């Protein structure tokens, strides 16, 4: 029992970062109605960006977050506007293939440039811990948890309260109506792709202090993120947040009882159960 609480708390910290990755994925899905296959590769790219920025300038990953979020937002915008959109000719299946192609280019580019060696960064506070309800949580994980919730909160307010957010929600459901009020739909698509990519950059900054980077690292996260999006309801914002936290806890608790390396089994058992019994997801009714 005294192991369960730390496992749950640890799971919540991981889950919050899953949630940020999943928010990016669900934002793009909600508006473009496609699964962005390049999402994991962009996360990997962002982790390398954090790593090399730290190696070159010694900048702290948390301090790099605003810089990388803006940089990756621009990258995402440009990818959608200059690659995905021109090659897709407005057909969803083409968008899917375009993002898959981008993923392959990024993955193999990373492998060619940086080899498949595992890299980590050393931070002076990496082994500091904070005590929460009698359990000890690594300081970087605690920071990551609150930062992730903060990012989700900012994104939520932006989607609910700003003109851009209203336009994003409008385009998600009614493209023709959106055009007729003067919304440039292609611009909104690119903004969503940019915001989704910025989410991934933010997640990378919160992740690297306690994690590693290799050219394959994105896959583990994008599978969890995809499961999160399905669990929460495709395109649902609260679904991605709750789903991410839930899967983090499920993974940690499953790891506790089945052994660390089998923790992800819990995630995929949940995935199958959701598909069997509630294919629209927890918040699917709202998203539909």
């Amino acid at each position, binding site marked *: 029992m005294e192991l369960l609480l730390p496992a749950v708390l640890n799971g919540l910290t991981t889950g919050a970062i899953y949630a940020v990755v999943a928010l990016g994925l669900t934002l793009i899905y909600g508006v473009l109605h496609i699964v962005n296959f390049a999402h994991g590769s962009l996360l990997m790219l962002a982790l390398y960006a954090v790593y090399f920025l730290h190696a070159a300038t010694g900048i702290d990953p948390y301090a790099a977050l605003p810089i990388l979020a803006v940089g990756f937002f621009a990258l995402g915008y440009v990818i959608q506007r200059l690659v995905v959109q021109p090659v897709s000719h407005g057909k969803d299946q083409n968008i899917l293939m375009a993002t898959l192609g981008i993923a392959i280019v990024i993955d193999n580019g990373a492998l060619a440039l940086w080899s498949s060696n595992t890299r980590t960064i050393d931070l002076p506070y990496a082994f500091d811990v904070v005590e929460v309800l009698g359990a000890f949580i690594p300081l970087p994980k605690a920071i990551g948890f609150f930062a992730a919730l903060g990012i989700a909160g900012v994104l939520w307010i932006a989607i609910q309260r700003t*003109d851009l957010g209203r336009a994003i929600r409008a385009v998600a459901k009614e493209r023709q109506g959106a055009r*007729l009020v*003067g919304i440039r739909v292609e611009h909104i698509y690119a903004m969503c792709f940019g915001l989704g990519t910025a989410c991934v950059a933010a997640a990378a900054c919160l992740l690297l202090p306690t994690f590693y980077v290799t050219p394959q690292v994105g896959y583990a996260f994008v599978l969890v993120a995809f499961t999160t999006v399905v669990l929460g309801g495709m395109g649902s914002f609260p679904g991605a947040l709750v789903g991410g936290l839930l899967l983090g806890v499920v993974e940690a608790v499953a790891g506790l009882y089945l052994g660390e390396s089998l923790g992800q089994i819990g995630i995929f058992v949940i995935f199958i159960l959701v598909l069997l019994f509630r294919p629209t997801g927890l918040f699917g009714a709202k998203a539909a």
Partner: protein
Amino acid sequence: MVLPNDWRVPMAEALLTVEDVEAGYGPVTVLRGVSMQVAAGEVVAVLGSNGVGKSTLNNTLSGIVPARAGRVRFDGADITGRDPAAIVAAGLIQVPEGRRVFPNLTVRDNLLLGAYRRGGRTRRQTLERVVETFPRLQERFSQLAGTLSGGEQQMLAIGRGLMADPKLLILDEPSLGLSPLLVEEMFQLIDRIAAAGLAVVIVEQNVVQSLTLAARGYVLEQGVFAMAGAAGDLLADPRLRATYLGL
């Protein structure tokens, strides 16, 4: 007698001038040389049955369907080939057939998006004015638009159009799918909006009510205007009465 070529406004400067516009989809040509004019503050009816190209005409004017030939001038500028956002910014607003409100947004957010191209400056005052015109929307302010009745959605769509502070409002089939009582109410509302000095183009199958409201009318048949003229003349025209009213 109504002449087919009588499409010019008998005044010097028209708000909207459409000249020999052709448009279509892929190999299909829908509009085969359409010309019309609307003066500032004028109410004009565009009539025609299903599939003659009414919505294609609207979407060409809104920049959603590109014109293959011809010119569209609006408010002193050539808007042929401009994108929908630029045309909205110029003040030509279409309230589309089927309303096209944002079902997942509240009534308030739908209205606010109507002013998307104008920014926040005078948005609050416009919102108050629109809500005054449609008190029913006030009651539903924080309700999702998808939960409104058909008539309420139509009001919301018109209200959203008014939020853009238009110079010309194109209403595509505003009476479609409404009960006879609501149709009556809708035409009264349009009359009130037009009385405030806004130019309105009503695109309708509902011939009698549209022509009662409008000063002039155009009758679209097979992608060209078959008839055009003053509303009273059109209503009295034996061919129109035979074709559209079965009299």
